[in-house]
């Protein structure tokens, strides 16, 4: 649960708490297909992933963005979040261990902007992005 966070406590250069996920599994991709309604078979049918040249299924980009959302809202309560933007850089596969990290790059006019990225266990960047939020002031 997020601890109460105030405008005064967050400054440019601060790092957000890092989130490291459990390894992605094929079963998780099946669950995410059902949860999200994205039934593109490239995420669930191995033969299709192979045919597409990935050697098997690949994760939904939106699942990795879901991890980013989890990391953000572990730190900043949803009610303060204004915007999240993600660029999908590389494909993610089962067994990949995703770590989400980020830091504050701008703080002005009641809005805090952070950069964020998701990497795998080999350090390969999967997604990059930015998010913006407000925070209550102590005084």
């Amino acid at each position, binding site marked *: *649960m997020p601890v109460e966070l105030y405008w005064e406590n967050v400054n440019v250069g601060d790092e957000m708490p890092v989130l490291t*996920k*459990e390894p992605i599994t094929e079963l*998780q991709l099946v*669950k*995410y297909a*059902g*949860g*999200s*309604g*994205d039934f*593109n078979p490239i995420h669930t049918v191995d033969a299709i992933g192979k045919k597409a040249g990935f050697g098997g299924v690949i994760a939904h*980009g*939106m*699942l990795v*963005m*879901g*991890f980013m*959302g*989890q990391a*953000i*809202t*572990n730190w900043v*309560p*949803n*009610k303060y*979040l*204004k*915007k*999240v*933007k*993600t*660029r*999908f850089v590389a494909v993610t596969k089962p067994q990949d261990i995703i770590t989400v990290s980020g830091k504050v790059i701008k703080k002005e006019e009641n809005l805090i902007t952070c950069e964020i990225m998701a990497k795998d266990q080999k350090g390969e960047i999967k997604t990059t992005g930015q998010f913006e939020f407000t925070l209550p002031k102590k005084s």
Partner: protein
Amino acid sequence: MGDLQEKLGLEFPAYKFVVEQGKIREFVQAVGDPNPVYVNSETARQEGYQNVIAPPTFGVCVEMWGGPGFENLMKELGVNAVRILHAEEEFEYFKEINPGDEITATTRVSNIFRKEGKAGAMNFVTLETTHTNQRAEKVLISRMMIVERL
């Protein structure tokens, strides 16, 4: 894809999606996010929400389950669904989304252009979807940019 600029501003028919608490739970379980504000209404209320809330990327669920279907959208745009990649996604938040909300979603082509790269030409299409609740409050805007490799 035929004449690109012709598609700019193209709007698809609005659709409705009722947010169910079980759907939110299923979604966060798939992501593996144990935050109680998505599943426990008491915790959610203590944290200042009306009820449990939808997580930050739940817009995809509204659009995939409630919408006309990705392949149909692509057909409408004249894009070859097999040749596309999801390049970027953006969510802009206005109000919380709770179970029982009836979302009306409207999608339009907000940007479209062609780029010649080393690997050949590519079409970039941004689909912007505005989500409005049963009180006519705008709750969310999503912007999905896809790339079609030609």
